[in-house]
């Protein structure tokens, strides 16, 4: 069979695994925030709460002095403050999942990265490039979600983990490690579930939206709106835990706390999981129609 001239040499077909071809998409998504100046500024803003906790940790171990090691003074502190000290599980979980602490950081990060991930490709018709290269819609969606999840996890999972490791290494003795190592697997699992579930919902919304701006607005409305409604209903009904059945952020937070072993009053874990699964099912049904192969070319 002679079908080619002397200059051009077609590449021989070399089978490659799906993972090998999806990995660049994961990497592109993971680094998406760092390709613009504003993205880097946003990332630094998101790091700021972790820096405050690092300062607290350094003060607690005595490396920063505010009139003596906080560790020795905490016995006189109020109970709420004592629970937020580095040797307590809440120090690692609450700054991420409590609306008053972690909501803005999470909202900022997911709105800027996750909500734009697929909508951006649709609006620029980049889906053509993927589909015609044999990237399946499911593989593409999975890679986009993984890249975005890993990026958001740097704030929600890696940062608390780094604080814990730092606390263990900076402590005078092994007491800190001994006291905290028991709950850390639960903390990590809880924060992973928290991040995975909310980024999953966000990227489903991104797959549905026609433009990145629309996706960002829809995500803010869904996350912020459900939280606001949850707060309103809770204050009107005066029933503890009702917010976790309405607010997506509170529902994911309830799951994270449950896995970390933090007691919660009046919270239904089943209700929180059902809310997240229900919303995910509706969004997934819509996203499936929007990510068909036929959507590309012409």
């Amino acid at each position: 069979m002679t079908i080619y001239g002397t200059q051009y040499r077609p590449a021989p077909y070399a089978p490659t695994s799906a993972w090998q071809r999806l990995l660049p998409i994961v990497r592109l998504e993971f680094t998406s925030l760092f390709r613009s100046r504003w993205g880097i500024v946003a990332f630094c803003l998101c790091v700021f709460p972790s820096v405050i906790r690092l300062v607290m940790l350094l003060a607690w171990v005595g490396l920063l002095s505010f009139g003596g090691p906080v560790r020795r003074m905490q016995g006189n502190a109020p109970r709420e403050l004592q629970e937020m000290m580095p040797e307590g599980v809440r120090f690692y979980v609450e700054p991420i999942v409590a609306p008053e602490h972690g909501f803005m950081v999470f909202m900022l990060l997911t709105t800027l990265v996750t909500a734009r991930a697929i909508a951006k490709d649709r609006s620029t018709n980049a889906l053509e490039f993927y589909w015609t290269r044999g990237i399946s819609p499911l593989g593409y969606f999975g890679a986009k979600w993984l890249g975005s999840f890993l990026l958001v996890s740097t704030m929600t999972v890696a940062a608390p983990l780094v604080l814990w490791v730092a606390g263990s290494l900076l402590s005078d003795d092994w007491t800190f490690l001994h006291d905290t190592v028991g709950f850390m697997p639960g903390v990590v699992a809880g924060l992973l579930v928290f991040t995975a579930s909310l980024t999953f919902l966000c990227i489903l919304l991104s797959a549905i939206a026609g433009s990145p701006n629309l996706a960002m607005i829809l995500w803010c409305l869904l996350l912020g709106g459900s939280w606001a409604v949850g707060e309103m209903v809770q204050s009107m009904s005066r029933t503890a835990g009702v917010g976790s059945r309405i607010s997506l952020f509170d529902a994911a937070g309830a799951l994270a706390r449950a896995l970390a072993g933090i007691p919660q009053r009046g919270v239904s874990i089943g209700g929180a999981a059902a809310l997240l699964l229900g919303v995910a099912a509706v969004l997934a049904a819509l996203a499936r129609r929007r990510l068909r192969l036929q959507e590309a070319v012409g």
Partner: protein
Amino acid sequence: MSDANGADRVPLLAFANVSKWYGQVSALMDVSFAVGTEVVGLVGRNGAGKTTLMKLTCGLLRPSQGKVAVAGHDAGSATARAALGFCPDLDRLYERLSGRAFVAWMLRLHGVGSAQARARAGEVLEQLGLGADMHRRIGQYSKGMRQRVRLAQALAHRPRVVLLDEPMTGLDPIARHELAQTIAQLARDGVGVLVSSHVLHELEAMIGRVVLIHQGRLLAEGRVADLRGQLRGQPHRLRLGSERPRELAAALVRLPQVVGVEFADAAVQVALSGEPGFYGTLTALGAGSAGLVEEVQPLDDSLASVFGYLVG
């Protein structure tokens, strides 16, 4: 098919009795054609079935009937996709990536390693004349440069078949000329190129053959001149340059093949029936009287004319 040496050839892109229905609506009906190492134009009005044909080639759609093969493999298979380069028509790319990073990234989607992808991306951009600008962001590129980047990503993995959707859109005349030369060179180097375009005169300048699609059916396939020759029912129109147009017109109207004569600036435009013998008489007229026939220019041998006659 066999080449001059008698070696076997397979068509690089083959449609064999392909039909495609969307429910009750038929988008393509029994379409058969083949593309070898050549540039073939794909022409048709909006809604004619060009997009469906491209989707079938890319493997995004499955034919309802028939078979589509890319380099001998079923369209949509991993081997067929590796052998196909697709250049879309939309002028929107990842603006924040450099030209080289974008092409390298497209290569990585084919499973090419990082270092190898960067090297190959640089090489193909160099070949397409973007060597000096490959490190600049795509957002800073001109339309011509962006078109080259799109072409580069289609060629970087060294495909056997290249599918170009409106490749000339937005290009200035120089860039169009250069791109046409690049495409023609591809075919000379052994690539099968299928070009879809609405700009028929530009398409004509670069293609060897044309595939005309109308209402989902293959209307005609072949060289433009051959197709025009087969349109016996349509009068040929010629422009005959002359120093004495009135004298020439008087001589022409007496000929049985001439069905109409019009005067133009220092010329006569004549419409001919399909009957033979006109050109022999015209040669005799020109030889018998100096200056009577100075120039003969066919007016409707173009792709646009053929397309117009066929689809009405």
